[in-house]
């Protein structure tokens, strides 16, 4: 009877460290909802108890129902025949059960049947589900689509769609990508046009649409004829009715349970979400940022599963007269995996909480505006949270998805030849992980998005504050290492600024983002180590490793290693 929430000591550790007081108060409108809903919390402690209870339900379903089906879902995969997409049997069963458990509208408002949970808690559920079956996350994790409608659509659309999302009747899809518009979404061509009565219709093709067979589709479309950039794009919602033709589904390396569709819209009736021209600039940005955090959760879940498989195997497999987990080279790999996992989780739930703050402040701002109250305090808070989350979201997506690849790679390595075979789930995890650093923005795109924050030193205040704190015992030694990394960071930054070479700066952005990210995570772990002795080991390994990597990145930049890309024509024969 494994429960994927209660058996995960590190997830419980992060749950117990959550600082959601302000977020919950804003989410719950000062606990006024308890008057109308018998399941709404009456205070912060009550809310936390609710979150814990529900995550236990999620953990139970994930461990005992979803995980045992993951291998067959991978084997069967989603299928396509006669124009219809069919989920694998296990996918269908799991979705039915999650719907019955009322878990498909975790972040939707209560008046539409949702649970009104903060994003942070929802992301814990996404991590738990991903550990059981990464491909199911691609459908369970689409709750952000309902959330986007809840946030920006008019009342009529909300009442029309949201109760069906919350009950699990509808699943959704975000139809953004086109054959010629992948990372560059400004190039979207799919047309939305109006008839004489002002009704909208969609015409065109979308590609690589996860769960494109869903009942409700959010579509990015060009509403302003003749435009070529983002300002001509709007967001529309439509039903996946007979006018939406699924042309094919992709045959993929991993996440077989998740159908990836090519869609053709043939004059599909649609309704506008929010305002025209803000499709990409506002709504997709909102949705994508959340989806990126979601992929962070998926990466974390896959990594957790791979680590568990590797540890279990290494303890059971005997070579040279003892379990291979006791061979120091193998032990070292396992320690590396575990430390990366814990460091990532620490970063991840900080990012989630910042995202929650940012969104709640946003809502609060609109509310205060309507009440004609003073906005200065909330404006400051919103500005700060936006600044931090704009850096942390791409950083998290980048680091966690790359780690998922590394951790599943190492887990397979520990299994040796057996891991290359289909008998063990590590082979599936390895394949499933591979998409995480590609979709919802490739790692290269995440680095571009995060580099601005790093270059502008957006976390400066926090780093200053943590630098001044007292740390017990040998932790002061680790503090000096972090100070050292910070100096390396400023040194690299100065070098790049002085060099004034855009293409060089673009390439070196990766090094800069990595150093700055490790600085932030290093300090998070140092705080944890200051109050929990076991975490001293995590902090130590992470920080010492970060110093070595920072020095390497510094050397890479200052040795002008990247200058040879100017001669790419000669090299790339």
């Amino acid at each position, binding site marked *: *009877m494994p429960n994927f929430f209660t058996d995960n000591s590190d997830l419980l550790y992060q749950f117990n460290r959550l600082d959601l007081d302000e977020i919950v108060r804003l989410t719950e409108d000062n606990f006024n909802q308890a008057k109308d809903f*018998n*399941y*709404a*919390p009456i205070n912060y402690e009550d809310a936390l*108890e*609710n979150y814990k*209870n*529900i995550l236990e*339900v999620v953990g*139970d*379903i994930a461990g005992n129902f979803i995980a045992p089906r993951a291998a067959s879902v991978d084997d069967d995969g989603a299928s396509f025949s006669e124009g219809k997409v069919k989920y694998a049997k296990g996918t269908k069963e799991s979705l039915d*059960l999650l719907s*019955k*458990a*009322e*878990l498909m509208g*975790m972040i939707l408002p209560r008046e539409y049947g949702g*649970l009104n949970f903060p994003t942070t808690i929802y992301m814990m559920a996404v991590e738990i589900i991903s550990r059981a079956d990464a491909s199911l996350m691609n459908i369970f994790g689409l709750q952000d689509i309902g959330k986007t409608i809840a946030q920006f659509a008019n009342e009529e659309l909300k009442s029309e769609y949201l109760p069906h999302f919350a009950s699990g009747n509808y699943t959704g899809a975000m139809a953004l990508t086109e054959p010629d518009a992948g990372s560059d979404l400004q190039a979207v061509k799919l047309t939305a046009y109006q008839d004489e009565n002002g009704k909208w219709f969609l015409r065109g093709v979308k590609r690589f649409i996860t769960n494109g067979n869903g009942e409700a589709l959010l579509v990015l479309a060009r509403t302003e004829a003749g435009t070529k950039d983002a300002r001509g794009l709007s967001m529309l919602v439509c039903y996946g009715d007979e006018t939406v033709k699924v042309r094919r589904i992709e045959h993929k390396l991993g996440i077989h349970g998740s159908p990836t569709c090519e869609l053709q819209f043939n004059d599909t009736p649609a309704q506008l979400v929010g305002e025209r021209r803000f499709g990409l600039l506002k709504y997709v940005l909102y949705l994508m940022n959340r989806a990126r955090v979601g992929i962070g959760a998926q990466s974390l879940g896959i990594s957790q599963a791979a680590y568990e498989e590797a540890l279990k195997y290494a303890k059971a497999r005997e070579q040279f007269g003892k379990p291979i987990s006791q061979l120091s080279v193998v032990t070292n790999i396992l320690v590396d995996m575990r430390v990366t996992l814990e460091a990532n989780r620490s970063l991840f739930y900080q990012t989630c909480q910042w995202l929650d703050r940012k969104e709640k402040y946003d809502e609060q701002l609109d509310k205060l505006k309507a009440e004609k109250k003073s906005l200065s305090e909330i404006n400051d808070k919103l500005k700060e949270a936006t600044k931090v989350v704009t850096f942390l979201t791409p950083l998290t997506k980048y680091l966690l998805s790359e780690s998922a690849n590394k951790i599943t790679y190492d887990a397979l390595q520990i299994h040796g030849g057996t891991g290359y075979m289909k008998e063990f789930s590590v082979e599936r995890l390895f394949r499933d992980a591979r998409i995480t650093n590609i979709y919802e923005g490739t790692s290269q795109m995440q680095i571009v998005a995060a580099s601005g924050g790093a270059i502008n030193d957006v976390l400066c205040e926090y780093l200053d504050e943590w630098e001044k704190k007292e740390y017990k015992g040998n932790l002061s030694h680790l503090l000096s290492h972090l100070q050292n990394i910070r100096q390396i960071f400023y040194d690299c930054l100065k070098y790049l600024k002085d060099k004034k070479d855009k293409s060089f700066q673009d390439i070196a952005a990766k090094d800069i983002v990595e150093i700055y990210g490790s600085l932030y995570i290093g300090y998070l772990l140092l705080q944890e180590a200051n109050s929990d002795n076991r975490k001293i080991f995590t902090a130590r390994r992470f920080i010492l490793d970060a110093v070595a990597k920072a020095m390497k990145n510094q050397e890479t930049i200052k040795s002008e290693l990247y200058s040879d890309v100017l001669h790419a024509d000669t090299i790339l024969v």
Partner: protein
Amino acid sequence: MGYKSIVLVKQVPDTANISGQVMKEDGTVNRSLLPAIFNHEDRVALEMALQIQDNHGGNVSVITMGPPRASDVLRECLFMGADDAYLISDRKFAGADTLATSYVLSEAIKKIGSFDFIFAGRQAIDGDTAQVGPQTAEKLGIPQITYAQEIVSINNNKVLIKKKIEGGYEILESPLPVLVTVLKDAVFPRPYKAKRVMAYKNAKTLMELEKLTEDNSLLYIDQLKYEYMSKHLYINTITMDDLKLDVERCGVAGSPTKVHKIESVVLTGNKHEHIEPNKIGIGTLIDKLMEDHIFG
């Protein structure tokens, strides 16, 4: 219209996860070291009752007899969808065997009122007797169908039930009310519903409310009970005083079952015999297995 169902549930020690420390030297089980869980077949029984409610309307009550902490399983029933729950608990009921248990249960059911169905799991994993359901039906004077696999139909106050028998199944018809015991794979129990988990997590029995008053002198039990009832958070609690019972038929006094001896049987192989992998060898093997009554 709709049907009223009563489901008998039990909290049992999790015997599937017995580790070394749990077994005592004398071969008995140290229950305090085992987690207490919802007897799986009773969860299936509840699901069957809830499906009748989904399809025909009506309501579902759950009853358990046990120590105060058995309230855990009642809350779990509320999480799944039961409309109300009853804890039957009293020190004087302790040590009851199936005869005494079914006596108290049947009297409690009479007090709760009329019903169309009583569902129970086939048996509990701690005693494995499969007797409480049938004995309760006997005492209530109603028909019973055991080993139910499926409810085929309900019409005009009659139910058709598919029942498992050795080598196959039979379909039986019964008038209502009827008591039905169900098999573990008859239906798949629904998960806890998130909203109900949050709404009913604080549902409390009389004993649990009394505990609150012990810890806080400002609370009065009647007031507290009223408050919990008005919020639908009171788990009905039935004690000896609430029922007209013959004391001699309750608890240890009413239990003729006496455990004579408990033996820890450990099967070990002490010799082996080599059999050639050919026709003659296989013939010899089959003969030996027939001799030992493993075959035939």
